[in-house]
């Protein structure tokens, strides 16, 4: 338990706190297929943690385990120093874990503003009826939430599309709206599934800046999956490398970059 309190300092001078989430010996099987094989690592408060690996390495499955969508076949997830029982996704969301998706999952017909407001669903206290009637505390509460949402809109520089239906937006902006929605939930852990997939260089740079700014401004712990190695190495504080469901490396980017197993996995070596 002494890991819980110790932190470390990143090269750029940020103070990283104690362990926020710990994954112990996670194994995930779908019938006979083993997606994740006995993986352990931890996520510390305030850090940007990347999970990388070639296609089919089990990265997204890992993210789904963290988000509580998959319940690991074996192993334990410890969150805030407590063992997390098997939960439904909405319960996990209430614990403060928000995510974005690899293939965008927004409400196309709704405006950007409304989409982001849905992110605050778990934080809303007034009931369905009073919200529908716009009665009692619901109105005041919505103003409060709207204010928070507007701060996020300002932060992500999407003021000009506030009222635009999401379906009409280009891909890069949709990704940004998705990030905004995840942020609106005021998460303790933010999970980003390939936030930069399919973007051009400029959009990628913007996204990088936003991820760093989010981490800097709100101190949000971020876990991200990404294919673009340059991005991962620049952004993250620590990297987990996966290959065929196993963990083959874990540590700061520089250390991981020189790890022989990682090089083999990426450059391709005949497996036994």
């Amino acid at each position, binding site marked *: 338990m002494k890991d819980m309190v110790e932190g470390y300092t990143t090269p*750029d*001078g940020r103070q990283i706190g104690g362990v926020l989430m710990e994954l112990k010996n996670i194994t995930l099987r779908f019938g006979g297929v083993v997606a994740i094989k006995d993986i352990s690592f931890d996520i510390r408060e305030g850090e940007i943690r990347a999970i990388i690996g070639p296609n089919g390495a089990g990265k997204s499955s890992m993210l789904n385990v963290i988000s509580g969508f998959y319940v690991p076949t074996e192993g334990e997830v410890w969150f805030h120093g407590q063992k997390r029982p098997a939960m439904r996704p909405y319960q996990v969301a209430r614990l403060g874990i928000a995510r974005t998706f690899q293939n965008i999952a927004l409400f196309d017909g709704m405006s950007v503003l409304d989409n982001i407001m849905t992110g605050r669903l778990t934080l809303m206290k007034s009931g369905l009826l009073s919200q529908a009637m716009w009665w009692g505390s619901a109105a005041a509460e919505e103003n409060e939430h*709207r*204010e928070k949402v*507007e*701060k996020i*809109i*300002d*932060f992500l*520089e999407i*003021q*000009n599309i*506030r*009222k635009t239906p999401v379906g009409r937006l280009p891909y890069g902006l949709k990704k940004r709206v998705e990030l905004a929605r995840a942020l609106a939930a005021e998460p303790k852990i933010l999970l980003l599934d390939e936030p930069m997939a399919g973007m051009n260089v400029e959009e990628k740079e913007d996204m990088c*800046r936003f991820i760093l*700014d989010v981490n*800097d*401004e709100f101190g949000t712990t971020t876990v991200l999956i990404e294919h673009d190695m340059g991005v991962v190495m620049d952004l993250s504080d620590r990297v987990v490398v996966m290959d065929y469901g196993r963990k083959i490396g874990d540590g700061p980017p520089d250390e991981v970059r020189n790890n022989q197993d990682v090089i083999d996995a990426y450059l391709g070596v005949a497996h036994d």
Partner: protein
Amino acid sequence: MADHGAAEQSAQSIPALLARNVERFGSRPAYREKEFGIWQSWTWAEAADEIRAMAMGFLSLGVERGDHIAIIGRNRPAHYWAMVAAQMCGAVPVPLYQDAVAEEMAYVLEHCGARFVVCGDQEQVDKVVEVEDRIHHIQHVMYTDKRGMRKYDHSRMNALDDIIAEGKAGHFRYEGEIEKRVAELNYDSTCVMLYTSGTTGKPKGVVLSNRNIIETAKNSAAFDHLGPDEDVLAYLPMAWVGDFIFSIGQAMVAGFCVNCPESPETMMTDLREIGPTYFFAPPRIFETMLTNVMIRMEDAGDLKHGLFKHFMEYAKGTGEEFGMPRYRVKRSKPTLRRRFRWAYRFSMGIGFAFETMVENAVRLAIVRLRHPMEHRKYFKAKGPLLNIYPQPLRDYFNYRTGDVTIYAPLKNTLGLSRIRVAYTAGEAIGPEIFEFYRSLGINLKQLYGQTEASVFITQQPDGQVRADTVGVPSPGVEVKIAENGEVFYRSPGTFVEYYNNPESTASTKDAEGWVATGDAGFFEEGTGHLRIIDRAKDVGKMADGRLFAPKYVENKLKFYPNILEAVVFGADRDRCTAFINIDLTAVGNWAERNNIAYASYQELAGHPRVYEMIREHINEVNASVAQDPMLSGCQIHRFLVLHKELDADDGEMTRTRKVRRNVIAEKFADLIGALYDGSTSIYTETEVTYEDGRKGAIKATLRIEDATVAPEAHAHREAAE
């Protein structure tokens, strides 16, 4: 009024005007800014408190009299306040173009010797930090937007909010000093220093005194009856003299409210929400708006499209007469006489609607009798059947009907509903575009001005507005035309000097105060309106001695929505040729409608059908140029469509989007060569600069095509003589 008059006399600086406004309009809104989705507003009293605190904060940093404070950022109240606060400290505000690359910024910062810089956000701070080793005077950098700034070295950097807090905290210490410095300001102290965009060579710092700004603002505000009820949208670059005059000069003098958009991208939405009454925009903005309207009308349903076409056609002649907003002195209560007038008009209106219905019913009945099967085809309203109302009244009601169905909703969509006075300047505006807005009942006028004149040289009075002139001399301005056609002016707004550049000052402004504009023009006989042909130095001779005025032809070309930019060559040559830049929005939309697939700007620009379309435009221009006896030599013989957009980042245009001829002539020398040597295509590589300053290259093979040259009307006459 007597005490107002006295205050008027004593207000010889912007801070003094601010104090006057607090007294006079204290609780009226002075500034609004949309932030977090809501329009936040500050009254004159609140704004004055903020400005004062900021000024005291500046003092705490050690701002001295005569210091320069550079301001780089988008239009935000805080930045306007910083300019006024700088003056309160006896310092000189120097607003810079925020889209300038670091290199350009370094030159200006070094040249003015700014010790303090106010940056809008991280991006601007980065640029200043990047060039910090080359500029020697900077002591302290302030920034408005705190985002992303945490990790910077704050030993010489602060948030502007902290400076204001500092000023508020040190309130007792600095109060006396501020009072003293404000009292020292008079008509001759420097109000602002603005850098010219530099069409040729390095930018020059134009020093404008309080007299220049305040006198000009007073005269122009009186010219257009601007009062405290106006609303303006401040969205033009703060470094541009126009924005300073409108958002500080006139706003302070007339006491109206300055509204700042949320971000540059939301400008159109914010325009709609605010609905300014006084508006300035370069022709480009009006062109873009019109293009968007036309594109959306193409997609509209038949009924809307038909109504739009019918009423826009109708408005062309009548808008001038019936649509224009009239300036009225405000009256508190409607008199009995006016109530009667309203009642009369209302009943006439109902009568007209009734008459129209009856008229159409009768006509339809007649047509149905004659053509029972296909009466629709023959049902066309042409001229009145029953002449109950006299023609002028019919026109009036027709226009009002159009107003209800088309003009008013359209103006509302554009955010121009409340416009009382709108100006455009900087470039020539297309006559169709101009007419479109005028016929909608938007009082769009033209003015002609310069940084050195504190904007106003000539402007169009209400009721004397035309597309091809720039109006009569503004109040207080004298204009004369030199022998070579160059326009000179002298006014209370004439600049003091170019900063640290006595040679340029001497060559521009003579001992009597006449300033050369560098533009060639003439006064139209009869009306006394000034017409500008071109830059005086660009007006040249062709090889055979005929007059060559490239801008004249380029403007004609640019009036086509498909052509974004054109550059015409021909000085000292035997014939003229042109580069064309297509407008991606317009041509892209056209391509979509005509099933033309394209992957990039370059591919679209080189498409044979685009060439075909551009050629038609050029032929039409040639035909019209041939009509002009003086300039008929300027017909375009050969042309090519450029593979990239001309861009300020590549130095091909100024930041105010004026073409830099020398740079283009040098950079595209190979293309110009090909235009004249008769080749039909040419391979070229062009260096481009991206927004972040990196460089790349575009390779392309461009086709060169011939245009049809119209016979010159006067050539025969010359031969005959």
